[in-house]
Structures are given as structure tokens and as C-alpha cells.
């Protein structure tokens, strides 16, 4: 691979990503990349140039794989999913996905499948015609979602299926939404009571019985062709074959899981299908998935399994080997059943405190080695004490990311209500917000000793 060419393609990929394209390359390249980069520890490559390439790749974040040694760029049309062949490159506003390939035959094969093909030297000019519209994480927006279903799952836990096309499409694994928790019947009843205030000013602007603020919920499950269990469960993972690469198709619905803990969640549990709820999403930083990852271990305590399921979907979509260890009090109270993880190709085990008599961290300590292969990372979500213990077991040999929870108000990092203390060299504490800097943090950055004192 020529370093200069590799760098150019990295740059192009970054530019394309900033314009909201999804970018893919084959597993063959991924292997090549790992060979190049593994030659030195922590992915510092032999030459300075290659190292810079890797830096760019990391910035892209979303990329699973990228093919660098080629000179061809392939682009997929949204409208051509039916497969009508076209030799002409479409207007960039219609392009959703770029694939970088190096061989002429592969380009031709893709062209026959309905992809448009262009040379990489033309791509730069092409990309610059598109304004940078979407940052890497889409800006949060207020939207209305329709309740599709509310079903109990586990003890006092519910699964809420919502339909909102923008939210479903923009959300990434690890992000969350702020959801209004009043039913339309309650709002209607209150409006009636308040009826035409300038004629009969009741002075009531909010119903004191209803939740005042919106509540945060992590995305639990994405829907759509790319997230269908059959697709995610494929072995070898579908993403590894170039012909099967598709744009990340999302359906219009998504799910959140919640436990009834207060009046907001109680109201939510009583929702009927058809209710319209206002929400703000996507909020928070998408969980950082290193482009060079081979496998991942998910560790969940109780409701922590909810956001980890969305992460498992995303990891499987990128073709990674995923293990999950779920912890709960007993089998009945587990909010996500192991079978659900298994249906998307995740190797899953449920550890119950009452029936197995061990904690999830005990299991992890014994079996972590067997669950990891290649470049790996641990993602954990659950009670703070569990997160600290997981960090102690895995780190520093295996990097750990923890998805934290904290009482939240604004969801935008402005009110500074949901902070977590970070390690710092200075005496003055450094706080980061769960809602904007998180919810996922690198475990080595969290000041665990301080957290133990303040969080129950």
C-alpha cells in the first residue's frame, strides 16, 4: 500500500463522513490494516504516515472497515435499492453510503448490482459539492413519537416501542432521549380545566400531579433491515462480505426499557398504543467503537442490559464477536432475556444472584480470558459498584468503557446536574456530564474512589 494514497483515501473518508455518508470497506482490508498497525504496540504503525492515517480513521468513529490500497470509490444510491444498474454517478444529495475498493473487478461487480462507481481522484471534487450538513453525531431535535406498544418484561419493567422516523434514524448506540411522561388524556383533561385562561384565568399552568420535566431513557433496540435478528446472527457476520454491505437501514421504530421508579415511569407504564409523546433526541455521545475492534464483552447489571442491547446490535452489524454477561437478582427479574441477545448472534450468559449465588463480576473474573479474542474491549452498564469492580477486573489489560447513570435535568450539558467525577492531576475536582460527555466514559478516566463515597 502506498502511504500517500492511503492518506488521501483516509482524508476522503473523513470528508464523506462529515457529510453524513456511511463508509465501508472489506474485511480483507481490515485484516491488512491490523497487520500494518499491530507491528507496534497500541496501533502505532511503522511509519509516521501510517500513524496519521490511523488517527484519521479514529476520528471517523463510525467506520468499521476501510479499504485503502485501491483507487476506486463505490457509491450506493438510496433510490437504486431495487437494483436498476446505472453507470452515471448521481447527485451527492442522493448518496447514502460509500464503499472503498481497490480492484477493478470488484467495482464492476458492484456496478452490476446497482452501485455507481467513480475514481477516487474525482471523489474529492464530488464531495466538496455537498455542504457539511450533519456533524458526526446528529443534532438533537424535538419530535413527537407514537406509542406502538407497552409490554411488561421482567419485574416492574416495561418495554416501550415508539415510532418516530427522525429519532430512529438519527440515534446511535449509547445515546438516549428525553421523553415526556404524560398521556394525552391527562393533557386533555388539564387543558379542559384550564380552558381559555384569559376569560377565566385559573392560574394553573401545570398540573402538579403530572411529571414536570421529561425523563431520560437509553435507546434499547433499533429496528430495520440492518438490525433484523436473522441478519445480525449470520455467521460469518454479514458485514464481512463486500457484496452484502448495505447502507445501515433503520426502521421508523425503536424501543426503550424502563423500570417503574416514580410518577414519570408509572405514567409511562400506563400508556396505550396510539398516544403521542413529545421527545428530544438523540442526546449524549454515541458510544465510541474503535474501528479496529475484533470482539467485545458486554457486562450488564439489572437494567444496564437495556442500552447494551443496542450496542450489541451495532457491534454485530459491524461483524464483531460479542459476548454478554447479564446479571440480575433472579431469572424472572432480568429485563432482557439471554435468548434475545442470542437471537442476534451474541454469546450470552445470565448470572443470577439468588439462583446461581454469584455476582456477575465473579463470573467475569473467571471467564473474561475465554471471552476475548484479538483487539477487544469491555462495555459495562449497571450499578456504580459493579462498574468499579468490572474496571478492576479487566483494566488495564483490556480497555473498559462504562455507561453511567445520573439524575438528569436538561440533557444538553448545560445545567450541570448529572456530573460524574473524573480523575485529574489537580486538587480541584473535574466533573463531566453524563448527558453530554457521556453516557459512556473510559473507565480509567473515572475517579472511582470519589464515586464510592457519593453514589449509593
Amino acid at each position, binding site marked *: 500500500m502506498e502511504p500517500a494514497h492511503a492518506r488521501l483515501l483516509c482524508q476522503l473518508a473523513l470528508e464523506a463522513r462529515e457529510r453524513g455518508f456511511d463508509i465501508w470497506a472489506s474485511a480483507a482490508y481490515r485484516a491488512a490494516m491490523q497487520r500494518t498497525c499491530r507491528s507496534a504496540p497500541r496501533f502505532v504503525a511503522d511509519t509516521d504516515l501510517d500513524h496519521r492515517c490511523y488517527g484519521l480513521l479514529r476520528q471517523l468513529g463510525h467506520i468499521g472497515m476501510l479499504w485503502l490500497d485501491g483507487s476506486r470509490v463505490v457509491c450506493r444510491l438510496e433510490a437504486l435499492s431495487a437494483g436498476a444498474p446505472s453507470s452515471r454517478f448521481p447527485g451527492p444529495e442522493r448518496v447514502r453510503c460509500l464503499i472503498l475498493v481497490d480492484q477493478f473487478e470488484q467495482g464492476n461487480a458492484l456496478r452490476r448490482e446497482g452501485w455507481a462507481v467513480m475514481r477516487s481522484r474525482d471523489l474529492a471534487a464530488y464531495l466538496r459539492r455537498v455542504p457539511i450538513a450533519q456533524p458526526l453525531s446528529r443534532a438533537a431535535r424535538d419530535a413527537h413519537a407514537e406509542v406502538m406498544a407497552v409490554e411488561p418484561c421482567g419485574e416492574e419493567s416495561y418495554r416501550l416501542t415508539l415510532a418516530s422516523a427522525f429519532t430512529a434514524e438519527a440515534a446511535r448506540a449509547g445515546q438516549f432521549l428525553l421523553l415526556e411522561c404524560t398521556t394525552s388524556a391527562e393533557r386533555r383533561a388539564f387543558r379542559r380545566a384550564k380552558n381559555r385562561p384569559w376569560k377565566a384565568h385559573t392560574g394553573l399552568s*401545570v398540573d402538579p*400531579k403530572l411529571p*414536570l420535566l421529561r425523563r431520560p431513557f437509553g435507546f434499547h433496540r433499533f429496528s430495520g433491515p440492518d438490525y433484523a435478528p436473522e441478519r445480525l446472527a449470520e455467521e460469518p457476520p454479514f458485514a464481512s462480505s463486500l457484496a452484502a454491505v448495505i447502507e445501515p437501514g433503520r426502521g421508523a421504530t425503536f424501543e426503550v426499557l424502563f423500570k417503574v421508579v416514580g410518577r414519570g415511569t408509572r405514567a409511562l407504564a400506563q400508556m396505550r398504543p396510539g398516544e403521542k409523546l413529545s421527545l428530544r433526541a438523540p442526546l449524549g455521545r454515541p458510544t465510541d467503537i474503535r474501528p479496529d475492534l475484533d470482539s467485545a464483552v458486554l457486562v450488564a447489571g439489572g437494567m444496564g442490559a437495556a442500552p447494551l442491547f443496542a450496542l450489541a446490535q451495532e457491534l454485530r452489524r459491524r461483524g464483531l464477536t460479542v459476548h454478554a454477561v447479564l446479571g440480575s437478582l433472579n431469572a424472572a427479574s432480568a429485563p432482557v432475556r439471554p435468548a434475545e441477545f442470542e437471537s442476534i448472534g451474541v454469546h450470552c450468559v445470565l448470572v443470577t444472584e439468588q439462583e446461581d449465588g454469584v455476582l456477575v463480576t465473579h463470573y467475569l473474573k473467571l471467564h473474561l480470558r475465554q471471552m476475548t479474542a484479538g483487539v477487544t474491549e469491555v462495555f459495562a452498564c449497571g450499578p456504580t459498584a459493579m462498574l468499579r469492580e468490572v474496571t478492576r477486573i479487566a483494566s488495564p489489560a483490556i480497555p473498559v468503557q462504562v455507561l453511567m447513570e445520573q439524575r438528569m*435535568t436538561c440533557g444538553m*450539558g*448545560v*445545567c450541570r446536574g448529572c456530573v460524574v*467525577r473524573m480523575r485529574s492531576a489537580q486538587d480541584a475536582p473535574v466533573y463531566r456530564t453524563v448527558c453530554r460527555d457521556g453516557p459512556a466514559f473510559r473507565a480509567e478516566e473515572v475517579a472511582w474512589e470519589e*464515586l464510592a463515597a*457519593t453514589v449509593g
Partner: protein
Amino acid sequence: MTKAIPQPKTPRLNVTLAGLRLRTPLIAASGIWGYGEEHVGSPQIDHLGAFVLKTTTLHPRAGNPPGARTVETPAGLVNSIGLENPGLEAFLAEKLPRARELGLPLIASIAGATVDEFAEMAARLDQADGIAALELNISCPNVEKHGMAFGADAESAAAVVAACRARWRNNPLIAKLTPNVTDIAEIAVACEAAGADAIALVNTFTAMCIDIRTRRPRLGANFGGLSGPAIRPAAVLRVYRVAQGVKVPVIGMGGVWDAEDALEFIVAGATAVGLGTCLLAAPEKPGEIVRGVREFLRRERIASVRELIGSVKLNSAE
């Protein structure tokens, strides 16, 4: 020749606050929307008359330890963030330039541990560009007076205002008062005499929430301040009392949630109305309130919102 049909005029919402021209009487209250960087370009900004930036202290402050920093209560929110902010240097270097992109009159808010700290910050901000007014958050504890809030007694409140007035020469100076006092009007009068051009009230009411199961306060810092619709009637009374006592304009706030609430403060005597907790619940509130106020004025055939300021008529006492 066709006869011109008289068109009903759109009611005017603009007000003047101590020489500051506001296109609507709505002001984003301090702290809720931070330094505004997240809201540059938001359509809601067009419905605001001014933006009060988050309170800044001379040195960076990390705020209270985590644990819960906010707790929702019936129609209210108790918070104890602890004035987390990046300090005056970072404010001037990073936050202020970005806030200017909002295209709104900016009101800087400052808090100090001593009178000298207040004065020093006022002098530094006097040199900075793009600050339309300075708000003194005198609800913070006074280190020199055993941590009692500056705003808790007339003498220390006046001392802060006078010290800042001497160094903040050109633009309006606003004193933001705490409601946790016996006679808020007395403190407002003292601030006016010391040179304040406007009085803003109320800050949060001190509050506490206890989890009866664990017997522990719900807030990590034990105690906090209550805001939201729960405090509105208490805030309206204080705005009324202060407006009666001083000649300078008053910025009223405390639990405003819709147009009627905003108008209630204006009728009580406020020239402008601060929006706080409602912006957390629903960021689209400014637009909703502006539409509601305009609708009310049209129905009541009032040409300008200024006619309503302090228009309350008391019932005759027995």
C-alpha cells in the same frame, strides 16, 4: 376610490429596561441555558429580549459533589449545582465570544465570595465588549460574613452594588435578589440607593427533600433551591412589593410556564420576565409565551405590553 380598511395593529411587545431595548419582555434567566452556545441559531432565541449568561465566579468552580444535583418535586425542581463554572478568564476568552453569536443583548451574571471579588470582576467585565448589562448574583454566601448571603441583608447587598457601580460605569447594573429574607423590598430599596439600575427577583427558595426510607436528603448536597411553578405565587408577591418600593424597573421571575404567568408578573410590576425552569422542561416555551401574550393583548385591545406593567389594582381592604 376605495376606502382604506383600518387594520388591527399587532400589539407591541418591545420594552425598555434601564435604557436597554428588548424586543420582547422575555429574558432567559441565568444558568438555565448556560452560556448559550447550544442555542446559537435556535428559532427560540428570536422570541427572547435578552439572555442572562450563567453566573461566573472569579476562579473556576467545580460545583457540588455529584450524587443527585437536581430533584423534581410537585410542580417544582430543587437544585444544588453549586455554581459550577469555568471562571472569569475562560468566560472572557471562550464563552463570551460564542455567546455574542446569539445576536441578543447579553447580560453577564457574576458572583463573588467577597465585595472585592465582585468589584474586581465588574472592572474586568467593564473592559470587555458585548455585555449589555451586568447582573449581580447576590444570593451567594459572603465569606466575610460567616457565609450569609450578600442579599440576605440590606447593608451587604448595598455594599456589593456600590462597589460594582464604581467600576461598571457605562451599562445598566442589575441586582438579583434572593427571596429568603424577611423584607425583600427593604433590600431592593438599598440596592437602588447604592446605584442599581434594575432589580431582578426572585432567585430560588431554599428547600430540602428527604427520602423517608433511607432517612437521607435526596440531594447530594442535602439542601438546595426550589424553582418552578410551585414558587410562582410567592414570587409574584415579592415582585409586587419590590415594584411598589423602587423606581427602577423590575425583572420578575419564578415559575413562569405560560403566557398568563408571564403577564401576571408584568401586571404585578415587572418590566421584563425571566424564564427559568420551563426552559428545561420544554425548550420551545419562549415562542409559545410570545404568541400567548400577543393573543391576550389583541383580545384585550391593548396596543403595547408596556401599558400592563404594574397595572394591578388591589381590592379595597375592609
